[in-house]
């Protein structure tokens, strides 16, 4: 087996490798691999079934879209097209199944395209509750988790005990707590941990076995806390809109180099979607369902009883940001819809904002960088 990635370059190589070497190794070792399409999927259940959960995030520009062109129109986001391309090119051969959820119409229908084109794989579509205010939302979601578990059990030919489920929920909970610590560092001392580094550390958690990633995070956190970097005169920004398709790492670095501390973001949000610690209730699946219904992260793909605009203002004020950067994927409807009310409340509150759009295959970063530089300068020197 490969060892844990040691350097930032190792992490980047791992995240950008669209041949999924760790998934292939797992498969070659006789295990099963289940992938998930963003944003969130309850991968604790996959872990409990003894399978390797892998969080897919498209190809990040790592493949040319050719075969997928005949099956998905050009007005659809890159991540959808590239994920299908990975499948059609055989890059997902190690995967025994894929999990999709109701984040948007495109992702939902992509599940159907996968089901038809890959009849040998398990394609599970979970309809996660959007009416989180309903008294039945937890029951309903528990039912969806049981359905997923039943599919995985059929695949494995054996039951998954409650103890195993509880163990997996605890393993993921421990991991999320460490990820939260990374974000705490970013919010309090962003000069210690650049956003792109934190991002790579979190993304690795979607590719490595969870226990191994937890160990990686412990080592990384100790290292980060020991750093002696000094604070620089940079703008504190909140980056939102990248909860599904991920911006190129070069763009993230460009934003930071242009004079920003990204003190919080929604990058790879699915890996930390349950924000609050879980309250165990004796039934691990119900615990997880409650965690989703009562403690999900704010995102454009999940309805919240409280208006999202209130969340944004509260978050921006709590983090004392100088501005908000909307960093949205081309054609990403949920993010593009929310942009308008978000921008309105920010304008009203006197919080500057900027909108930058990206695509997986983008290669010219200068324009975006210049935009951010101008934005940072105008805010810092006003």
């Amino acid at each position: 087996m490969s060892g844990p990635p040691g350097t930032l370059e190792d992490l980047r190589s791992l995240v950008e490798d669209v041949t999924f070497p760790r998934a292939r190794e797992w498969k070659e070792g006789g295990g099963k691999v289940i992938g998930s399409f963003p944003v969130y999927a309850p991968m604790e259940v996959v872990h409990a079934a003894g399978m390797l959960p892998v969080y897919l995030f498209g190809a990040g520009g790592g493949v040319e879209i050719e075969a997928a062109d005949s099956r998905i129109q050009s007005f659809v986001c890159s991540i959808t097209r590239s994920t299908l391309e990975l499948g059609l090119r055989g890059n997902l051969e190690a995967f025994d199944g894929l999990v999709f959820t109701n984040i948007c119409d495109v992702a939902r229908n992509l599940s159907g395209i996968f089901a038809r084109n890959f009849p040998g794989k398990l394609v599970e579509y979970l309809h996660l509750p959007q009416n989180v205010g309903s008294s039945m939302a937890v029951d309903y979601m528990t039912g969806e988790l049981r359905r997923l578990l039943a599919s995985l059990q059929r695949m494995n030919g054996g039951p998954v005990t409650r103890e195993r489920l509880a163990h997996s929920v605890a393993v993921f909970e421990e991991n999320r707590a460490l990820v939260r610590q990374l974000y705490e560092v970013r919010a309090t001392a962003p000069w210690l941990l650049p956003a792109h580094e934190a991002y790579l550390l979190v993304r690795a958690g979607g590719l490595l076995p969870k226990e191994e990633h937890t160990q990686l995070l412990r080592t990384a956190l100790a290292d980060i806390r020991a750093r002696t970097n000094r604070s620089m005169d940079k703008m504190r920004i909140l980056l939102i809109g990248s909860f599904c398709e991920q911006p190129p790492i070069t763009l993230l670095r460009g934003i930071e180099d242009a004079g920003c501390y990204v003190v919080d973001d929604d990058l790879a949000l699915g890996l930390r979607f349950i924000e609050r610690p879980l309250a165990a209730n004796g039934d691990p699946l119900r615990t997880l369902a409650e965690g989703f219904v009562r403690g999900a992260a704010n995102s454009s793909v999940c309805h919240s009883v409280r208006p999202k605009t209130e969340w944004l203002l509260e978050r921006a004020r709590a983090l004392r940001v100088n501005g908000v950067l909307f960093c949205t994927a081309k054609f990403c409807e949920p993010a593009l819809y929310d942009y308008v009310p978000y921008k309105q409340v920010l304008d009203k509150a006197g919080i500057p904002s900027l909108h930058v759009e990206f695509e997986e295959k983008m290669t010219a970063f200068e324009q975006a960088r210049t935009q951010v530089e101008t934005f940072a300068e105008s805010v810092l020197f006003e």
Partner: protein
Amino acid sequence: MTATATTVPQDAGKTLQRDMLAKYYGALETANEKGEPVAYLFIPGNIVELTRCFDFHAVYPEINALQCGIKKVAGDNIVRAEDLGYSSDVCGYVKNDVGLMLADRQSPFGKIPKPDLLVCNYSGCNTFIKWFEALAHFYGSEFFLLDLPYVRGTGILDGDVAYVVEQLRELIERCEARTGIAFSEVRLREILARSREAEELWVQILRLAQERPSPFDSYFEAVFYMAPINILRGTRECVDYYRHVLAEMQTRRDDRRGPVPEEKFRIVVEGPPPWPHFRAFWELFKRWGAVAVASTYSKVGGLYDPGVRHDPARPRESIAEYAMGSYTNWNLAKRADLLRRYVEEYEADALVIHSVKSCRSFSVGQADFREEFVNELGIPTLMVESDLADPRYFQEAQLRNRIDAFFESLTQRRLTGAVA
């Protein structure tokens, strides 16, 4: 074959509908000032029977958007919304609605009232949620999200029905609190009985397209005839309307009259029409003698022909099943199977897909349908692209070339015996 004029005369069914819609929009104009409650709803899977129990006026922003498209004001509305910050890549219906709001809700068919309650019947379209979240932000109106699970297997799951029924109970409480009207199960059953009656009649009409020639175009005309069942379902006048249309279509059948002088090709159409260029688009098919014998867009308000029905004997359960059983809430395999059955049952020569950028709920998966229909089922399939609301996406010359080439090849195949 009996010759008729190329354009169907403005017959009585159409005149009647015009009067009904004028009355509907007329009542909306004064709703706010009279203090009458207004609920906004979406078309697919809506629960209007329930809001009728509380005397809500029903406003359907999708209907307003398509009307604006036909009246050629959608383009201006869309530009207004884009000036506010909406992207050129999001749904034209949403932008039309926001643009209409920015124009003080003054439409060519009257002033649209503000919402008191936004009932987001989330059936087969995530954009619905974003749309009404935005309206809740702009208007400060009460929002209720009716979460309708996607049909993810072969049918609706029991747990899904229970979840929706519980939400209906919660919605009833909210409606009672807002209007001060006590919920009446008896009244709901009466309304549902009228819905069912109209649904039965509508299905009888749709099935007449199995005749040769088809007495009407089951896309270009059916999307017109579907308006009352989408807007006025549950009312007596809606039932009367379909009784009238059925009689009219039976007469057309008896007279062997159809929408074109000679029916040369029978097609099944998938996807919404380009409302701002509706006539021009229809002409591209008429000139080939192509008649739609079945379509999916005419079923967005309810998949009644495969059997979905409101049922006064099972009021809440049947509302839940209807709401989840809307076309875009079906998974792609079920959608493809329905299209295949339409081709068989209506003896169609081809499948035509009109893919619209605005509505990814409809359009993502259509290219894969084409792969399946052409390569695996051997059914000739044409896929063309434009938009349902945004007039800027309609490239007539390009569409004409594609459509002409397709029917030329169908003609050729027929001559050479390649097509039965």
